[in-house]
């Protein structure tokens, strides 16, 4: 997991840079950094602070005079109480978002790893072409691509007919949270799929999320697989390890930075995605992204929406902090 064992990786770069930046003035890097970082500070950091502030304010966009009030003396912690009672206890939207995102991340990893592995080690002269193909779907509107799943997963489609005839749908439908369990655990009350349909079920949403975030898993995986010194794998097989053992003991551990980076870029954005649930899910199957969207747009309850966003931010910051403690920040960018 740590950055150290990757030979020639970014961790070696700064030392090299010291030598190279000799002769340039010490303020050069800051001059290069400042315009862009200023932009990120004003339009990423400041808004995040404003969001925190909003989550502890009172008021509504559509009620009263439409303004919000914040005071250090009267922090509105009740917004978080509301958020938890509405979106964790009464309906398990927060947990559901994380679990959908978790399943989608695992699926992404399973699908993306062989792809990245093939591009890095087996593609030969097709390598650049394959890399282009990985990002090519990016260029078609992702909303259109997501609605295309409505065609692929429609009740009469080949895919769904096949799943129905082989009994897969019966099995997937049987995976559900029993009615006797408390409300806050009801994540799949009606099963992963319907008995005869996939569209407008949890599986459709999870598949949509998996599809939309696949490139964000594939590219970091490729980046870390590509850096592996092939001679290390050859050394393992020379010492009589089987291909599988060589993969398990050499290739996979060395690709872990990519696995973790891909997971961060997939899991957290997926947990807040509003599009797949809206386009592919059932009408009542909303996730955190939809809840935040609705509280902002339809209800105008900005403080509640902000506290929901902050709850997601806490998950992000925790995961990133855990990563940084083990591997540092050099491999992040």
């Amino acid at each position: 997991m740590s950055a150290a064992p990757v030979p020639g990786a970014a961790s070696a770069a700064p030392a090299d840079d010291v030598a190279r930046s000799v002769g340039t003035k010490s303020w050069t890097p800051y001059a290069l950094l400042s315009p862009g970082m200023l932009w990120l500070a004003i339009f990423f950091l400041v808004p995040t602070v404003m969001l925190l502030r909003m989550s502890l304010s009172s008021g509504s966009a559509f009620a009263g005079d439409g303004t919000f009030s914040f005071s250090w003396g009267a922090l509105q912690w009740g917004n978080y109480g509301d958020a938890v009672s509405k979106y964790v206890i009464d309906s398990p939207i927060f947990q559901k978002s994380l679990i959908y995102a978790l399943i989608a991340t695992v699926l992404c990893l399973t699908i993306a790893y062989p792809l990245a592995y093939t591009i890095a080690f087996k593609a030969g002269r097709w390598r650049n072409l394959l890399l282009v193909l990985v990002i090519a779907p990016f260029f078609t509107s992702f909303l259109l691509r997501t609605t295309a799943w409505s065609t692929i997963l429609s009740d009469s489609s080949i895919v769904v007919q096949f799943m129905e005839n082989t009994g897969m749908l019966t099995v997937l439908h049987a995976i559900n949270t029993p009615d006797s369990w408390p409300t806050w655990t009801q994540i799949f009350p009606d099963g992963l799929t319907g008995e005869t349909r996939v569209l407008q079920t949890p599986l459709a949403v999870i598949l949509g999320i998996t599809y939309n975030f696949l490139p964000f898993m594939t590219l970091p995986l490729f980046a870390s697989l590509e850096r592996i010194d092939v001679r290390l794998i050859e050394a393992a097989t020379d010492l009589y390890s089987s291909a599988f053992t060589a993969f398990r003991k050499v290739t996979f551990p060395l690709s872990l930075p990519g696995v973790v980076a891909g997971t961060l870029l997939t899991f957290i954005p997926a947990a807040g995605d509003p599009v797949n649930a809206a386009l592919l899910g059932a009408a009542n199957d909303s996730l955190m992204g939809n809840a935040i969207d609705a509280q902002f747009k339809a209800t105008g309850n900005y403080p509640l929406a902000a506290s929901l966003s902050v709850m997601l931010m806490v998950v992000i910051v925790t995961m990133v902090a855990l990563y940084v403690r083990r591997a540092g920040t050099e491999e992040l960018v």
Partner: protein
Amino acid sequence: MTITIDERREQALAALPPHREPGFWARANRWIRTHLVQFFAAFALLFMFLPVMIVVLFSFNVPAGRFNYNWNQFSTIAWTNVWQDPQITDAVKLSIEIALLSTTVSVVLGTLIAFAIGRHNFRGRGGINLLIFMPMATPEVVMGSSLLTLFVAAQLEGSLGFATITVAHIMFCISFVVVTVKARIAGLDSRLEQAAMDLYADERTTFMKITFPLVLPGIVAAALLAFSLSFDDFVITNFTSGQAVTFPMFVWGANTRGIPPEANVVGAIMFIIALVVVLLPEVVKRVRKS
């Protein structure tokens, strides 16, 4: 009893199982085993491209009802009509304007940062790395809603539109530009620059003649990525757009009453342009070689 060595050899050979070429199924089995990972990769590519193929295919459909989900009838009418619909033309135009502006600004800002990170050591590196990474890992809903909060606090709620969308797009494009350009800088052979310096090129000349041309492909790739991210963004735009309608906003709005096949045409055209732009250098390279 003694036997000659030749007899012994014959006995031994007779005891061996008869030699056979591996059969068709045995060979097929072995081939599949050694190519298993490629099969999964091919499956992954199919998974990625199936929806794109559907989008292109259904641009030739005449929907039976309001919704363009089921195949009805082949026609090229959407392709000939696509620029007749002012709603689509305006939305595409706005999206292109925003994407061009945010690509330009984010590529300049991001490239400067990439050079700073890739070429210099400085205090506060960790914090800078984190601030660049966070916009990529944060859900778009969170960024969109926090930007809206900022704009509301700045009393800009009435003037949401082109400017606020562009500002937001630049923000989330910068990180992707930094990552793309930095990867290129990290892969450079620094001996090329040392050679230039050894041959009495000053720093400026070395940069203009060696470093920059070598980094340029990375900058072009970053620009393409930024353009597509901006052109395609829906979630953040939805929070910062006010009354302005970009192409993704048009698609979203049309979704409840049925997306017209003309929207698929725009998607298909974008895909084809991107494919040509990205594949052209590769093709030119191969043609020149042969």
